[in-house]
């Protein structure tokens, strides 16, 4: 501030303002200097980045794994009929229509599409203390997959029926023949 006063006393302009041209020139020099430093230091790096990228970057990453832990239970009709239990059928609509446990809710598992969040919310607010899922009994079993997905999305006490619907149907046939 003192220098400004000196200049004012001498009748000179109070401010030595840098011209726009020199502002732009200095900015360009900084870019050039930075480029030189960047290239030089990159050349010294062991894991140097090539100046020109040839292969496409893998910018599409898989969705985070939401699957959680889900235990298995044996095919047992008594378990499925317990009053506090929410029973889910993870199979296709066709299979569900062909046969299902009487009180089972149909939540078809899709390997490509996650279960809709409103369905998950509905299940979470059902008031059930335990959830048991049965699927197609294949390998992988849709029941196990749905149980793990629901568990990963925050539902507690979710288990799946070992052997899925085929095991339950077999059990039904055994009961009928006795």
């Amino acid at each position: 501030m003192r220098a400004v006063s000196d200049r004012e006393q001498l009748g000179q302009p109070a401010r030595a303002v840098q011209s726009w041209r020199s502002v732009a020139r200095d900015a360009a020099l900084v870019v050039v200097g930075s480029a030189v430093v960047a290239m030089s230091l990159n050349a010294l790096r062991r894991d140097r980045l090539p100046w020109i990228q040839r292969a496409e970057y893998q910018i599409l990453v898989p969705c985070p794994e939401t699957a959680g832990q889900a235990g298995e239970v044996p095919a047992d009709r008594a378990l499925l009929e317990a009053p506090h239990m929410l029973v889910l059928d993870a199979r296709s609509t066709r299979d569900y229509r062909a046969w299902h446990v009487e009180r089972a809710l149909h939540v078809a598992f899709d390997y490509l599409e996650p279960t809709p969040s409103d369905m998950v919310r509905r299940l979470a607010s059902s008031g059930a203390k335990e959830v048991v899922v049965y699927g197609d009994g294949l390998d992988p079993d849709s029941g196990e997959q749905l149980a793990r997905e629901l568990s990963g999305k925050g539902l507690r006490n979710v288990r799946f029926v070992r052997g899925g619907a085929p095991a339950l149907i077999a059990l039904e046939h055994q009961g009928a023949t006795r």
Partner: protein
Amino acid sequence: MKAVLDWSGHAFVALGARGYLALVFLVACYHKILAPHDFALDIATYQILPLGLVNLLALILPWVELAAGLMLLVGFRARSAALLISAMMVVFTVAIGIALAKGLDMSCGCFASQGAVEDPISWRTLLRDIGWLLLGLYVLYFDRVPLGVDGWLARRSAVATAQPGAGTKGAS
């Protein structure tokens, strides 16, 4: 307009703005300089630049940020640094705006290479960048004689000019 430009308080207001912007850019360049591969991936995720320019930008931009940050901090060619920062903020703002318009679920890559889950871009990111752009423009337009090295050089030059016979001492 001249009265606004001549207000003596600009240098002090701009000093605060410079310190803040310098801190932002020095922090921002840190991980980009250390991990250019990650930063290149961040740039590629925007899907704006041609592939051939991605690595060049990933290499050069962090050093420009470092230089501009340091220049703002010490007040050396502060308006040039503010010009660079304003230009970078325009580019970043446009890039984030395009990414948001495209509905890309991604991180901005501004400070550390994080996933879209930890640091997703949003309209708030855009507003933040616009705020930094305005600060940069303020320094550029109103901080005519910045406090710091520029101010010191200006004073020195003024005093040297004021002294009769200055610059001819050695010859006499």
